[in-house]
C-alpha cells in the first residue's frame, strides 16, 4: 500500500492537507497525523463510540470512515468543542455531575450528546438513553452521564416556564 492520496480536512476550524494511504481511518488521521489524541479507539467494530466526532455537523464514528471520505469536510473533535478556559456546557456538566470516571469513553460520549442536543434541545431521560446507545461506558453505569446531558440541556437552553 504505497500509493497515497491527498486529503484536505478542516478540523476545529483549521484547514489541514495530509497525505495518507487510501485505507487510513479518519480516527488515525486525526490522532496520529494531526495530533488530536482526544478522540479514542475502543473497539474494531463501530460498537463503542469512543471515536465519535462531528463531520459536517453529524456525529460519526471516526473509526468507520476513511480519511479520504472526509475530503473537504468540516470536522469537530472534543478539542474543538471547548478547551480548559472555554468549556462547552456539556463538558462542564459532565464535570459537575461526575459523568465520567476513567474518561476514555468521555470525549465520544460528549460529542454524541452534543449532536443529540443540537437535534433535540430538551430530551427526556429515555430519549437521552436511546440516543447514547451507540456509546459504551464501562465505569459509570450511565446514570450520571444521563444526568449530565439533561443538566447541560437545561443550561444551554432553559425551558420557558
Amino acid at each position, binding site marked *: *500500500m504505497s500509493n497515497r492520496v491527498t486529503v484536505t480536512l478542516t478540523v476545529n476550524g483549521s484547514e489541514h492537507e495530509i497525505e495518507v*494511504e487510501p*485505507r*487510513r481511518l479518519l480516527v*488515525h488521521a486525526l*490522532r*496520529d497525523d494531526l495530533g*488530536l*489524541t*482526544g*478522540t*479514542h*479507539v*475502543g*473497539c*474494531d*467494530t463501530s*460498537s*463503542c463510540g*469512543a471515536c465519535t466526532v462531528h463531520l459536517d455537523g453529524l456525529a460519526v464514528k471516526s473509526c468507520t470512515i476513511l480519511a479520504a471520505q472526509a475530503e473537504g469536510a468540516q470536522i469537530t*473533535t*472534543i*478539542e474543538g468543542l*471547548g*478547551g*480548559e478556559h472555554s*468549556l462547552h456546557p456539556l*463538558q462542564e456538566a*459532565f*464535570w*459537575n455531575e*461526575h459523568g*465520567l*470516571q*476513567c*474518561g*476514555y*469513553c*468521555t*470525549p465520544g460520549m*460528549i460529542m454524541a450528546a452534543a449532536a443529540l442536543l443540537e437535534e433535540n434541545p430538551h430530551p427526556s*431521560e429515555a430519549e*437521552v*438513553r*436511546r440516543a*447514547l*446507545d*451507540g*456509546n*459504551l*461506558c*464501562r*465505569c*459509570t*453505569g*450511565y*446514570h*450520571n*452521564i*444521563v444526568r449530565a446531558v439533561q443538566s447541560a440541556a437545561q443550561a444551554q437552553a432553559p425551558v420557558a416556564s
Partner: protein
Amino acid sequence: MSATTERHVGQPLRRKEDPRLITGKARYIDDIALPGTLWAAFVRSPEAHARIVSIDAGAARARPGVHAVYTGADMADIGGPLPLAWAPPGVQVNNPPHWPLARASVKHVGDPVAVVIGDDRYAVVDAAEDVVVEYDPLPVVTDPEQALAGAPFVHPELGTNQVHQWTLAGGELEAGFAEAEVTIERRVVNHRIAGAPIEPRGVLADYRAGTITLYSSTQVPHFVRLFVALLLGTSEEKVRVIAPEVGGGFGSKLQIYGEEIVACWASRRLGRPVKWVETRSENMAVTHQGRDQIATVRMGARRDGKITAYHVQIVADLGAYNMLLTPLIPSLGAFVMGGCYRIPAVRTDITGVFTNKCPTDAIRGAGRPEATHMIEVMMDQMARELGIDRLELRRRNFIPKEDFPAAVATGVVYDSGDYHASLDKLLEHVDLDAFRQEQARLREQGVHRGIGFSTYTEICGLAPSRITGPAGVGVGAGLWESALVRVHNTGAVTVYTGTSPHGQGLETAFAQIVADRLGVDPSVVEVIHGDTGTGPEGRGTYGSRSLANGGEAIVKATDKVVAKAAKIVAAELEAAPEDIVVRDGKFSVKGSPDKGMTLAEIAGVAYIGAVPEGMEPGLEETTFNDPENFVFPFGAHACIVDVDVATGKVDVVRYVAVDDCGNPVNPLLIAGQIHGGIAYGIGQALYEHVVYDDDGQLVTGSFVNYALPTAAELPSFELDHTVTPSPVNALGVKGVGEAGTIAATPAVTNAVVDALEPLGVHYINMPLTPMRVWRAIEEAQAR
C-alpha cells in the same frame, strides 16, 4: 497536636482529574509518542490447541519497513515464564510454563506465536498476516467438568487437567447437616465474563543505554517493574514503569502480560522504542477473563429458619494457564462464603481446572461476586423450601450488630456491620406491600413483574501483610500501601501514592484528606501515582484497597508532616507543640486563634529559615501502612424486573441500593462507584457471556457479540446509605469499588425467579438472556 476540623472530607467535590479528561488532553498509552518508535503486531493462534510445526517469517521479514519478526525461540534468553505470584496456600498447584511467546505449542485461541516489529502501525498488521505458521491441531477441551474427567489434556505432560484443590472449612459441617431439618442442594453456575475496559491494553517500551522505561496500561506498575526486571535479567532500579492515564481496568489490568515483556525485550534488542496497542478483538481473546465457576451448593437449616451448615464445592475453570493470581481468585470468595449470616459450619472446596480457553483471573469482585451470588440465591431457595419470608429468613440469620468485630466460621473477623439497619433502610424506599399489590394487578394484565433482594457483605481493602503474606494464609502477597507527602517551599503539596488509580477519582479523594489535615485547599494538593520512578514502592489499585490502605497511608504520612510542622510553629510562637491546632487554614495556638502560621509560612521556615535545634530541614514524610485487618463493606439491594414471557426478555424497571462503606470521603465518587458496580453486575446477570464453542473457538470475539449493557438497557439507580465506620483505619472507611458488582447479580436473579414463580420457574442460572429465560419458562410449563 489536636484533631483538625474537617472541611473537605465528606464533601461531594467535583474531581480534580476531570479538566484534562473532558477536554481531550489526557494522555492514555496510545497518545504517547516517542521519537523513533516502532510498532508491534502479534501473530496469534487461530487454533485452541495445537503443536507448532513450523513458523515461516520470510515473507514478513521481506516487507518494506519490517525490522524484525521474533518467535518464542528467539526469546530463549529470558529469565523464565510469566509469573504465578499468589497461589492458594499450602497446596500443590500444577503450573506449566506460560511463555510471552508460545514455545512448541499453543493452548488457546489468541495465544501469541510471533511478533512483527516495523515502522508503521498498519504495515506491521499486514506483515503479521504474512507469517506462515503450520499447526498440528490437538484435541480440545472446553468444558471444565469434562476436563476433570480425563483426556484430552491441555498440558499432556501433566496427565491431568486439575490445577489444584484447596479447602477452607470452619465449624462442624457434618454436625450442622445432622442438625438440619431441611437440606437443599443447587447447581450454581457463574459464567465467564470479560473485564472489557473501554480502553484496551497497550505498552510502549523504551530501552536506552541500560535502562528500560515501560509505559503500560496497568493497575500494578510496581509489580510489572519487578517482573520485567526478573524476566529480562536486569536489575529493578534499571526499570521504570509508568501507568499513564488508564482507561479502566476492572481487574483485567492487574496482571503481568506477555506483551509487556516482549515489548521491553524487543526494545532492548532493537535499541528503539516499541509500541503495541491491543485491538478489541485481541482484548476479548487474550486479556484475562473472570468468574467461570460451577458450584454444587448445599445448605442445611432448621424449620425455624436457623441455617446450620453450608457446603460449597466449586469447579473453577481457570483456562489454559495460571497467570498472576489465577488459582487464588476463587479462594477470595471462600473467606466470605457465609455472607452476612451467622452460620456455624461453612466449608468451601475448590478444584481448579485447565481448559483450552483464555486464562481467568481477577475481574471486579474476584471470587466474592460468585460467593455472594451463591449465598443470596440459596437464601431465597431455602426461604421457599421452609415457607418463611425471604427477608425474614435473612433477618433471623444476620450476624447482629452487637457481635462486631465478628469472628465467622471461615476464620476471618468481620470488622463492623449493621445488616438489619441497611435492610430497614432499603425497605423505607421499597414498599413491599404496595409492590405485592401492584405485582398481582400486573399479573392479571399479563405483565410478569418480580422483585429480588441481596443482602451482602464482602472482604476487601486487600492487605494486611500479616494475613496476605507468607505467615498468614500465605498467598505470598505482602500487601500494605505507601505514601509520601511533600510540602513544597510555598506550602503547596505533592502526594505520592503507591496505589495506581484508573478512574476511581483518588486524586480528588486523597487531596481532600490531605487538605483538611494541613489546613490548605485541595486545589494545592497534587496526587502523583502510577510511576515507579517517583515516590515509594507501592502495590497498586485493585480489591477495593486504595482508600482503606492508600488513603490511610496518606493520613499517617500527613500526620507526621503535621507533627513536624507543629514543632516548627511551637518554636516560632513560643508555645508547646501539643497546643498547636490546625484551624481556618492556620496552625495556631490553642486558645489564641490570632496567633498562628500558614503552611506556606511553616514551609518557609522548614526550607529557607532556621528549623529548631536538632530538627532536619525540609517538610516531607513517608509511610508504609499495614492495617490490622481487611474491611467488610455491606448493604442491601433490591431489583425489580419485568419479564416478557413470550420472548424471555428481562427489563430492569427499578434498582434500589443501600450501601455502607464506612465514613464517606467524597459522596460523589462513592455514588459513581456504586452506579458502575451495579451496571457491571446487571451486565453479567442479563447480557454478558464469554462463549467458546466445542472446538475452543471464541464466539464472542468483539463488542458485536459480547453484549455490554448500553444506556438504553439500564435504569437510573436509587441509592441510599448507612454509615458504620471501620475500626481498622483512622478514616473509618471501607472499600466501595466492587460492592455494587458483588451485590447485583443475585438481586437480579432472585427478581426474575420472583416474576416467574407463578409459571413454575423456581430456579434459574445466569446469564438470564431471552433464550435461557424463555427455555426455563417452557420447561416449567411442560412439567
